[in-house]
């Protein structure tokens, strides 16, 4: 069985009478995309801002509901079996502000671990294990408000790993990390993938996609235009392929983060 299945998924953001929105026009965030992801696969969503990467991840995480089509995680529908999906999906989609600032990194994770139904006796060891996974063990007793952006980023990933998810969703996971932390993070991704976890990550970064992803789902204005295999594909080859299929004449200036020079 596929880990994640998207069947003709359409997502439209509409201005509603009860939910005031700045825009008065419907926004077609996803225009009927279909995709299967195998267990243990690392799939990167590649595309510029507004292409639908984060929307896709939020649909899989149950934070959003599709307007048409359906999203399945290990056979569970995100619309009708949201609780079952939540138990299997770990997400690091939020901003770095998503921690309780006056609690330490460890206390934050202990709180979320209990909410994830981890048995009480396993909480402390599990929290320490995920802190070690993201190399934050030395910052365990620092208040969240005193952590750097990169540390917040890693803490968010540690939180996503707490429940030992079978599917991990990451939204631009290395955007605040320095080169060493980025390199360590890519190793962690490979290690998690080898242990059978399916990983879906949204990225602007060709180098990241080439380094860790088995396939890249290239999105453009809410449409899935190609899903190439990236086996041993170089960064340059991936970028050339991207420019070719999207028809864009992009330059490094269009890609503010992570574009190889």
């Amino acid at each position, binding site marked *: 069985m596929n880990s994640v299945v998207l069947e003709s998924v359409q997502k439209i953001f509409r201005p509603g009478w009860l*939910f*005031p929105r700045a825009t008065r026009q419907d926004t077609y965030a996803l225009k009927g995309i279909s995709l299967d992801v195998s267990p243990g696969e690392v799939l990167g969503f590649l595309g510029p801002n507004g292409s639908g990467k984060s929307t896709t991840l939020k649909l899989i995480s*149950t934070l959003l509901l599709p307007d048409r089509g359906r999203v399945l995680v290990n056979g569970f529908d995100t619309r009708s079996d949201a609780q079952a999906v*939540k138990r299997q999906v770990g997400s690091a989609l*939020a901003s770095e*502000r998503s921690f309780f600032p006056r609690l330490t990194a460890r206390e934050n994770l202990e*709180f979320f671990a209990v909410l994830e139904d981890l048995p009480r006796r396993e909480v402390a060891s599990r929290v320490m294990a995920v802190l070690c996974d993201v190399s934050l063990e030395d910052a365990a007793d620092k208040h969240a408000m005193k952590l750097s952006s990169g540390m917040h980023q890693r803490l968010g990933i540690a939180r996503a790993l707490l429940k030992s998810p079978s599917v991990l969703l990451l939204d631009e996971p290395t955007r605040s990390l320095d080169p060493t932390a980025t390199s360590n993070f890519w190793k962690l991704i490979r290690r998690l993938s080898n242990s059978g976890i399916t990983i879906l990550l949204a990225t602007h970064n060709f180098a990241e996609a080439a380094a860790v992803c088995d396939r890249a789902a290239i999105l453009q204005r809410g449409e899935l235009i190609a899903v190439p295999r990236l086996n041993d594909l170089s960064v340059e080859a991936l970028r050339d392929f991207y420019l070719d299929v999207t028809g864009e004449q992009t330059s490094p200036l269009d890609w503010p983060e992570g574009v190889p020079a």
Partner: protein
Amino acid sequence: MIIAKAMAVLRKDMLTAIRYRNGFVFGVVAPALQFATFYYLSRAVGPQFRPEGMPYFSFLIVGTGFYTFLLAGIHSFLRTVQESQQTGTLEVLMTTATSPATLLSLSALSAFASGIVQLLLYFCAGVLIFGVPHVNVIGCLSVFLFSVLISAAIGLFAAGLQIAIHKGSAVLWLLGSTAWLMAGTMFPVAALPARLRIVSGLMPFTHSLTAMRLALFQSANSQALIREIGILALFLLVLMPASVIFFSQMVRRARQFGTLSFY
């Protein structure tokens, strides 16, 4: 597992409260000042004013103390959603294995728990001044339980409104002020004009306060107490399922519209 979650929420809120040191100190001092205010207010009004047959100070303590306790509980539902939206934790909390309604109810536990401490302090101070009243313990506990559950239901409505229109606090402020005026917090409902008394009767707070006063100070009047508890049970029967459905629908709509973290 639910107890472990409740303990985790209490611990989180306690640690946060303690680490905001100034706020913690003010939170302890403010109720003492409020208590003193009521004491001197009742002295200024004089002993001849005995609303519903009890000293005005006792009337005030139950009216304001219990009402404030219930309102703080309701506010905590709203505050939990508001703070989660502002700190960016709402989406993370919504993706945990704990359902949103459970999470909110557990968060309200902290507010009720800290409110109980304040309420007990009020009660003890009242006992020191006026001696031990003939309390109908079972009646008192029943009123307390029904009132807390009704507040939780109203809190869920408020949280749903916050998710839906992002201005749940305005609606709650209106409700709180109306109840403050009409529920018999500082003066008896009998002082209101006939039409407002009808509105007052439709508010669960009115019955909570009346029933609590009956249970604490007029334990002999069990008929009236049973009637008030019956009315509270009826409110609970209607409000609780309605609030759960309303909140779930609002969360679902927010997931559909993508506005879960908007504020």
